[in-house]
């Protein structure tokens, strides 16, 4: 079966009413949006579920720097106005990744293969500029959590968060998905691979605990006991 990286199911609901749209135009003008204004970059890449490589998603990252070593990204299913917000990615440099506890490291993935492979790219940005940044990204690790399983046609964000992984070797990315993205964005992964030969991955090599410790991950929901809603909490002075 040809698995599409994004489903084209419409989001249920009525079209936005005029009054609502007008109010939002106003609030959009009056209010401050500093954290959003810090987002300066659009990256396109591919994620798959940490328990299922066959389910692959085209992921549009909108990223901002918290500092030189840490970025945070909103992930959408397309670069368009009506894109669905499907997840979050955090990106850190190698030195910070190495400080993570050992049971945290598996939730993170390496970027070396998808950058060198040409699969991660910045739409609209000339290669020579793109490569300046990709030189850094190549050595980083990312943590991706998705909330909306658009690849299985969910009309709304159902279920629990999913930890995602990224490409780590040839043969993983579905060819149809690859060709579709190459066509829509006018890129050639193979050409990019050629241009990116001099990029290198983490200085200490890819950590064995990264990428789901080489196995896989799944998330589960658990009910926990909590004090009764009507009981009095401790008083905080």
């Amino acid at each position: 079966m040809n698995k599409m990286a994004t489903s084209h199911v419409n989001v249920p609901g009525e079209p936005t009413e005029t009054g609502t749209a007008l109010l939002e135009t106003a609030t959009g003008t009056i209010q401050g949006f500093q954290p959003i204004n810090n987002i300066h970059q659009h990256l396109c890449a591919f994620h798959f579920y940490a328990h299922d490589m066959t389910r692959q998603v085209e992921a549009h990252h909108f990223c901002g720097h918290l500092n030189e070593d840490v970025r945070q990204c909103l992930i959408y299913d397309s670069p368009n106005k009506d894109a669905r917000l499907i997840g979050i990615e955090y990106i850190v440099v190698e030195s910070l990744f190495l400080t993570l506890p050992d049971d945290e490291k598996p939730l993170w993935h390496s970027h070396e293969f998808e950058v060198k492979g040409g699969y991660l790219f910045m739409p609209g940005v000339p290669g020579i500029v793109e490569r300046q940044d990709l030189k850094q990204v190549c050595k980083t690790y990312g943590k991706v959590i998705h909330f909306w399983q658009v690849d299985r046609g969910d009309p709304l964000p159902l279920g629990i968060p999913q930890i995602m992984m990224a490409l780590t070797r040839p043969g993983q990315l579905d060819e149809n998905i690859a060709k579709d993205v190459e066509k829509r964005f006018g890129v050639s992964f193979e050409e990019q691979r050629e241009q990116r030969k001099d990029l290198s991955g983490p200085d200490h090599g890819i950590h064995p605990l990264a990428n789901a410790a080489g196995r896989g991950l799944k998330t589960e929901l658990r009910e926990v006991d909590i004090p009764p809603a009507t009981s009095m909490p401790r008083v905080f002075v």
Partner: protein
Amino acid sequence: MASSDEKPGPTPVATGDKPTPPGEPTTLSSKILDKGAGMMQSLKPVKEMKQHVCTFALYAHDLSRQIETHHYVGRLNQDVLQCAVYDSDKRKANLIGVEYIISPKLYETLPEEEQKLWHSHAYEIKSGLWVNPGVPQMLEKPELENMACTYGKFWCTWQVDRGDRLPLGAPALMFSPQPVNRGRVRPDLVQRRDEKYKISTEELRESRVDIQEPEIHPNADYWVKHNKGFAVDVKPADMKRLAPFP
């Protein structure tokens, strides 16, 4: 391997005394690259966020852990909103999660097991906890009545309030303030927020008295009736593969 209700293992990262997150200040060359990219790329989805809401949320595994949140809200249609949630309204705010907001009509179509993960907004709005900083009351009022009927699903990916300098662990479900003892927001948190924006939550509550009290679906705000919260665990599993991994 990781659970949303467990403290992460000790690392230089998890102490709360230094500013989150660790790392060098952004270099000039990064800034220039960013600026350059920003000029060439349209960033359309991000421009759809047209509302800033400041409110409060409670961890679904521990209602006593409460945070002030900054939601940047984008609308998909009249019934569905999606929010990027931060821990402040500053440029270098930490991205701490995502919240989805849907109309009662859509909430009713969800399976029961799914409905348990969502929370109501009526009390949060009527009590004045939910504010649109900088927006005159008369402007926001008409839409608040709609918002008061909605349901939200909020996943937190970075537990800044427990001192994590980086996003550690499993994502955590969040719930909304509720009019029961354990669901009320600590007065000091509200006061600090009010002082920052020079507003009065109390006054807002009075001005919102006429907002209709919607009928809340019995499956929302699960913890209130059942005295059970939720945690998320991340566990090792076999990955279904179509090629060798890693």
